[in-house]
């Protein structure tokens, strides 16, 4: 009797937790948008996607651009580190792979780094990437 009560109680707890998770899911970072300052710097071509999987400042560097780039890169590094461990890869391997994908995902007008190290503006044509990129 007591165990049945406990079972029912714990099931209710689990259901409650599931609902809370579902509600919380709406506000999770999975659907979060870019910070407005980052979004505008990216659209203006002041920051661009580097080959190594991190963001870089294009052209003249300002304190504000450096702050945006550092903030994003610290967060990226944390994510790369976590996923690298989960996929049994090194941080550099994972970051470089993400760089391939991030450059491919740039929109026309945005900046990315070509294999020769130069900054390129993305057009509707495929970006120039490292030959190892999938």
């Amino acid at each position, binding site marked *: 009797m007591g165990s049945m009560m406990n079972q029912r109680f714990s099931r209710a707890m689990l259901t409650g937790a599931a609902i809370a998770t579902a509600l919380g899911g709406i506000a999770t970072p999975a659907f979060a948008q870019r910070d407005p300052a980052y979004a505008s710097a990216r659209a203006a071509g002041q920051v661009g996607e580097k080959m190594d999987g991190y963001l870089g400042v294009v052209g003249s560097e300002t304190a504000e651009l450096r702050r945006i780039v550092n903030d994003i890169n610290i967060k*990226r590094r944390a*994510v790369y580190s976590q*996923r690298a461990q989960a996929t049994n890869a090194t941080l550099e391997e994972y970051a470089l792979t993400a760089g*391939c994908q991030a450059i491919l995902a740039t929109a026309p007008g945005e900046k990315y780094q070509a294999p020769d190290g130069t900054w390129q503006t993305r057009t509707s044509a495929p970006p120039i990437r490292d030959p*190892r990129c999938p």
Partner: protein
Amino acid sequence: MKRGELTDRASAATFPAKQGDSVLSGTKRMAAAGMIPFALAGCITVNAPEKPIVIELNVNIRQEVIYRLAEDAGNTIEDNADIF
């Protein structure tokens, strides 16, 4: 220019070997004469490449590793849209 001279000398020393000793010895003499400027200069100049130097980023990372991680990395970017 230097590369052209080197190539000429190498080919001259190789092919006439089939034609006879007299030709070969003449060629050898010419080759030896060709060496004199190099010997006097004491060094060989190497010109810088005209093409831009391509940065080989993380050359140790193999393509197969990148292919293995590609799908996971793509999902990571989608799941963290705020920082990509």
